């Protein structure tokens, strides 16, 4: 079995990543999935979260919001609605979005607000991904 996987991440606007990687961690709708070379074929919906992968030992992260992944033994293709690398994330905007979502949630009270919840999750993920980048620098 091959020691590497072809990883492709595609968004409606462009091809974000096309690389040969050692492993991929994707945020499946039912929980994070770790994929190593030779994984069984799988199709999964993605939740809001981080995609992590390693290229020659180096860790890379992306923030994704909703997507769809096809896993084959030697290839992983991810369709994501948005996928941003750490250096592409607008931290100020994410922060603002986070505050706004938290506000909405407070107002919504116990019955909750699904949209705001999702927005909050997206903002937090973005901040997480962006934060890790700055921390390692």
């Amino acid at each position, binding site marked *: 079995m091959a020691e590497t996987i072809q990883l492709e991440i595609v968004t409606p606007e462009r091809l974000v990543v096309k690389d040969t990687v050692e492993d991929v961690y994707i945020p499946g709708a039912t929980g994070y999935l770790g994929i190593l070379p030779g994984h069984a074929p799988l199709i999964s919906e993605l939740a809001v979260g981080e995609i992590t992968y390693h290229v020659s030992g180096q860790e890379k992260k992306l923030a994704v919001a909703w997507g*769809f992944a096809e896993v084959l033994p030697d290839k992983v293709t991810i369709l994501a609605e948005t996928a941003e690398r750490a250096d592409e994330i607008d931290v100020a905007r994410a922060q603002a979005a986070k505050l706004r979502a938290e506000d909405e949630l407070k107002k919504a009270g116990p019955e909750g607000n699904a949209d705001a919840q999702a927005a909050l999750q997206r903002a937090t993920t973005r901040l997480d991904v962006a934060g890790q980048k700055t921390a390692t620098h």
Partner: protein
Amino acid sequence: MANLLDIRRRIRSVRNTRQITKAMQMVSAAKLRRAQERAMAARPYGKMLVNVLKSLVSRSELYDPVTGEARHPLLMRREEKTALVVVVSGEKGLAGAFNANILKAAARFIASKEGKNIDILCLGRKSRDYFRRRYPSGEPGEARKGKIQIIGEHVGLMNRAQFASAKEIAERVVGLYTDGKADSVYFVFNEFKSVIAQRLVVDDILPISKVGEEDIVMTEEATEEERKRRIEAAMHAGVGVRAADTSAIDQAAAGFGTAQVDYIYEDDPGKLFGNLLPRYISVQLFRGMLESEAAEHAARMTAMDSATSNASDMIDSLTLVMNRARQAKITKEIIEIVSGAAAAQ
């Protein structure tokens, strides 16, 4: 005979105009190239989404095995009482007949739906301006302002269309459809495959009749003369006329989700399909917006190329008039001198 000085002034002014139209032509050509690239970049995602949807159709029980009826609301056709028409136009003028054509086609389509309620959603400044003069703005649903009304407008989206805005619009459209406030959704835009291959289409996007296939209900092809003008303009501006080769992209995308293996499905295929369908609509809208944008730049490029060559013709003929006037003046002066000399003898 016209005054020499006046003619010279005219020529200078036309020359300035030519410089401007030439610059606009070049800018449009550059923008067209970029728009084409963006449309290309959007292809794989759309193709892959369609593939997954197609493979899901066979795996999930979307269609009733006995009656063949669709079980997902977005696939079900019902009686058309209210039709939602999404019209994509340009943001700016000076693009030849681009905006006029698309609005004419939209108006004709609306006229063909006579007797039904029509809700219009305008994308682009020109379509908003056009429909606003004709129809009132209202809310979708029961309390209508008229048989034909505008239910929304999005201005400023069409310069560098973003997927996020296409998604937002698609969500609203799908919402209206599932709430029963619209029984069908049509999408009027200028399809753009290449500078020569483009046409106006009315695409019936909801209900979805067949995933991955357009459901064109009306088209309007460009005339032969128009096509010739476009090719000429593209050659002057150094833009490729033919569609870029997409076969490599398409082939790579075609493999997605269709490998001959049994996939493990993390989720229920039916549910997955339901989540994917609305995204399919947003992809279609996005594609339409990108193509319309490319078509707008191509139309402007063509119009400006015509303007430039017209200005050149005008300069030529004015120069001719000017030379003739100058010659006449010289001749007249010579006659005066000669006859003056003759009188003195």
